[in-house]
Structure formats: structure tokens, C-alpha cells
């Protein structure tokens, strides 16, 4: 009997029929983490739902996806409702999601955030650790897959911008479980070889799982300890990895990494032109200044009227001669003699003046003395009374019975106080 061969279409239709008619698969409640999320321009969501051991393709048509209130992204944990069916064209079974809810961030996302926080706290991202990228690298180490698009993008970009540099490709695993160790190993190798002055480490775009080696702690620490500056260029513009933060520079894509690594030929041509113009101008300015200085000298009055020089000199000579005469010693001696005579005369005058003045002063004092002499007063009959040698000026100086000495102009006698009479001011 002839064997009956099914067509692929028939088999696929049968499988699809089985899926569509299974009661359990008609209404499925599923939880998982989003990966490979794509938002199609017509509004459909294409994604993979996964957990630690398995994954399933998923699609959510625009009619349903427009009701989703949050923005799904890779690493997000979700619960979905939907049905299972087969997409005949690719022979793929997938879940057709009708409802989707967010339940939290996925484990990878949490791990990423945690490591980022820890390393940042430790200072691995600090600006002060960033090494300077050389302006004109001589040899660029490219750490990526030698077969991917990234390496071609980098080579083409460097070719276009600055082909004077060289590139050394270090074939590196950039996804999968061995990638992290391989990246670390290759960074060490570039440093040990020391042929290159900058490293571009990167790969093209992919899912969060694909990019995960660049979020590994050992990779981050190796990037940090590299002596050669590293430009991290992982995935697309929107992808950020731990490597990007710890690297000396982050480029959005491998092409961007190459653009940062080397200067642009076109800009250098422009710069050279600017330098040429600057030189031209500087030299012109210099010549103009020298010409001006020369002209100033040439136009100087001396060149036009040389007699001026002798005239000026002659004037100066006259002046100096005059000065010399004044300063001559004979003249000074004559002058000194004259001064001496004059001083002698002055001295004589002054002596006579002082003598006259002193005589007058003496006469005056003598006269004054005459007036104040107490003897002159006693001549008129006044007496001077003393007690124990002290002159009595007040009634309060004596008491009854005191012995006092009374002095007259021509002698003295002792007396006893018989009585006292005080004159008060009221009387």
C-alpha cells in the first residue's frame, strides 16, 4: 500500500485545529516577563513571554493593545489573558493576548537597578575616574563579534572619518553565558598587549537577555580597571547597560562609538584651513607693524633736517658750560669769603643787642624787688607776729595764753595773748 504523505499545510492546519479546539487553550491566564518587545507601526504588540525555564511567542493585536494603559517594555512582569493558536506561515504556536496587566518589574530589571546603585555608590561611575580618549588614536582595539554588523559599522566609520588610524579586532563573545568571561579576558589581553590606545567595546542591538553580559558585575569591574580608555557602544540609542555607565565614554551605537573614537577628516581639513588663514593673517599683521615702525623712523625729523642735531647739541653744550662755571671751586671759595665777612658783622650786632637787653631786664627786676620788700612796709609801723616761728595770719592760729614773737623794723619782743576777739563776717 502506498504511503500517504501529508502536505506541510495540511499538517499545520491539523495542528492549528487541535489548538483551536482544546478547551484549556481557548482561554489561558498566563504570567511572565516581557522580552523582545516590539510595538508595530500598525499598533500590534509582538513580544516573548518568559520565565526562568521557558518562553512563548506572543502577539496582541491593535484592537486589544490600544486598551493597555501602561507602556510595556523588556524586563516587565505581566499577567495576560488570551488564547493559543498556530501561525501557519511560520509554523509557530503563540498566545494571542487579549488583556495585559503589569505586575511589577522583572527580575533582570531589578538586578540591573541593584547593581547600578551599588556600583554608583562605590564610585565606579565617577567622572574623576574617566580616562581621556586620545584625539588621534593610532590603533583602536575593537572588542566585538568578528562576524556581526557592529564590527563592519565600526570599520566603515573609521575609514570614512580618519583612515590614518589602525584597527585591531579582538574577536569577542557578546552574548550567551560565556560572554562575560570572554569580555573580561579580552580586555585584559588588550591591556597586556598594549598595542592600542583606545578600546571600543560593543555589539549591535538585541533583547535585554542578549545585552545582559554588558550588565555583569565582573565586566563592569574589568572596564573600570582597564588602563586603556574604553568606549562602550552597546545596542541601540535607547539601550543603557552598566558597561555604558562605567566606561570612559558611552556611545549610543557601534557606529557612534567609532565616531567618538576618531576625528572627522572633513573637520580636520577645515581646521587646517583655519590654521593656514591664521598664519597668513599673523604674518601680514607682523609685516604691517614692521613697515609702520620703519616708516616712523624714516619720517623722523632728523632725517629731514640734520642741522637740528648740531643745534640741539650746541644748546646742550652751552648749558653744561654754564653749569660748570657755577660749580667751579674758585668761585665757591670767593663766595665763602663773602659769606664769612657778612657773618662776622652779624655776630657783632647781635652781641651788643643781647648786652643791652640783659641790662634793661636787670634794672626792671631791681625796681620790682624794692616794691615788694617787707622791710619797706614795716618802715610804716606795721609789725610781724610769729608763733613758734610761723607767721600768724588768722585769729584761729592762736589761743589764749600763747606766747608770740612780735617783730618790728628795728627789733623784737615776746608777748602773751591775753584775750581773743574773732571778727565774724556778719558783723
Amino acid at each position, binding site marked *: 500500500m502506498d504511503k500517504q504523505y501529508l502536505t506541510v499545510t495540511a499538517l499545520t492546519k491539523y495542528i492549528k485545529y487541535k489548538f483551536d479546539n482544546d478547551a484549556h487553550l481557548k482561554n489561558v491566564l498566563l504570567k511572565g516577563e516581557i522580552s523582545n518587545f516590539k510595538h508595530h507601526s500598525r499598533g500590534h504588540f509582538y513580544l516573548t513571554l518568559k520565565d526562568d525555564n521557558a518562553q512563548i511567542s506572543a502577539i496582541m493585536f491593535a484592537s486589544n493593545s490600544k486598551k493597555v494603559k501602561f507602556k510595556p517594555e523588556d524586563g516587565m512582569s505581566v499577567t495576560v489573558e488570551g488564547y493559543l493558536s498556530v501561525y501557519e506561515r511560520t509554523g509557530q504556536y503563540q498566545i494571542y493576548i487579549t488583556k495585559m496587566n503589569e505586575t511589577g518589574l522583572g527580575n533582570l530589571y531589578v538586578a540591573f537597578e541593584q547593581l547600578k546603585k551599588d556600583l554608583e555608590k562605590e564610585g565606579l561611575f565617577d567622572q574623576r575616574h574617566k580616562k581621556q580618549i586620545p584625539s588621534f588614536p593610532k590603533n583602536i582595539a575593537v572588542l566585538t563579534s568578528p562576524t556581526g554588523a557592529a564590527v563592519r559599522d565600526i570599520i566603515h566609520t573609521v575609514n570614512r572619518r580618519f583612515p*590614518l588610524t589602525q584597527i585591531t579586532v579582538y*574577536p569577542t563573545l557578546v552574548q550567551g553565558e560565556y560572554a562575560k568571561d570572554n569580555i573580561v579576558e579580552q580586555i585584559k589581553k588588550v591591556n597586556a598587549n598594549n598595542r592600542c590606545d583606545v578600546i571600543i567595546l560593543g555589539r549591535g542591538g538585541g533583547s535585554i537577555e542578549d545585552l545582559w553580559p554588558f550588565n555583569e558585575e565582573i565586566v563592569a569591574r574589568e572596564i573600570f580597571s582597564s588602563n586603556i580608555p574604553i568606549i562602550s557602544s552597546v545596542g541601540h540609542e535607547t539601550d543603557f547597560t552598566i558597561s555604558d555607565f562605567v566606561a570612559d565614554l558611552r556611545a549610543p551605537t557601534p557606529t557612534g562609538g567609532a565616531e567618538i573614537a576618531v576625528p572627522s577628516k572633513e573637520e580636520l581639513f577645515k581646521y*587646517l584651513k583655519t590654521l*593656514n588663514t591664521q*598664519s597668513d593673517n599673523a604674518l601680514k*599683521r607682523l609685516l604691517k607693524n614692521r613697515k609702520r615702525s620703519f616708516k616712523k623712523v624714516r619720517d623722523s625729523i632728523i632725517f629731514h633736517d640734520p642741522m637740528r642735531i648740531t643745534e640741539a647739541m650746541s644748546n646742550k653744550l652751552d648749558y653744561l658750560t654754564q653749569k660748570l662755571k657755577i660749580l667751579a671751586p674758585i668761585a665757591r671759595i670767593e663766595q665763602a669769603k663773602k659769606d664769612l665777612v657778612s657773618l662776622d658783622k652779624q655776630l657783632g650786632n647781635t652781641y651788643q643787642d643781647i648786652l643791652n637787653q640783659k641790662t634793661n631786664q636787670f634794672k626792671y627786676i631791681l625796681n620790682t624787688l624794692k616794691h615788694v620788700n617787707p622791710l619797706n612796709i614795716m618802715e610804716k609801723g606795721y609789725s610781724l607776729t610769729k608763733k613758734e616761728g610761723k607767721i600768724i595770719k588768722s585769729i584761729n592760729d592762736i589761743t589764749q595764753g600763747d606766747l608770740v614773737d612780735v617783730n618790728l623794723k628795728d627789733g623784737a619782743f615776746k608777748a602773751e595773748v591775753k584775750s581773743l576777739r574773732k571778727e565774724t563776717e556778719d558783723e
Partner: protein
Amino acid sequence: MSKEKSFEEALEELETLVKELENGDIELNDAVEKYNKGMELSKHCHTLLKDAEEVIVKMMEDNQLKDFDE
């Protein structure tokens, strides 16, 4: 001038010369000499960039430097 001068060295020297020229405090003879040297350096840089062939790409595999085929 040595033609072996790298682009970076030549450019750096050119920048220094321009700075010295712009400073103005320089003998005229010296200035003209520096100017000529600067023009030569500029031409050298220009030629290096213009005539550069495709970038030389090598591959480091098993500690051996090999040609890299895209």
C-alpha cells in the same frame, strides 16, 4: 622636514607655530621661517589625510596578529 612625521605630531607642531606667529613678538626673519615651515606642515597633514588608503584592520586571534577579512 621628515616625511615620517605622524599626523598628530605635524598638527601639534603646526598649532605651536601659529601660536608663536600670532604672538607677534618675533623677529621678521624668524616669522617668515616659521610661516614657511607651518605651510609645509599643513601640506603634510593635508596629504596624509587625503592620500590615506583604507584603514589597516588586523585581528588578534590566539595571540597572533592576522589579516581581518570582512
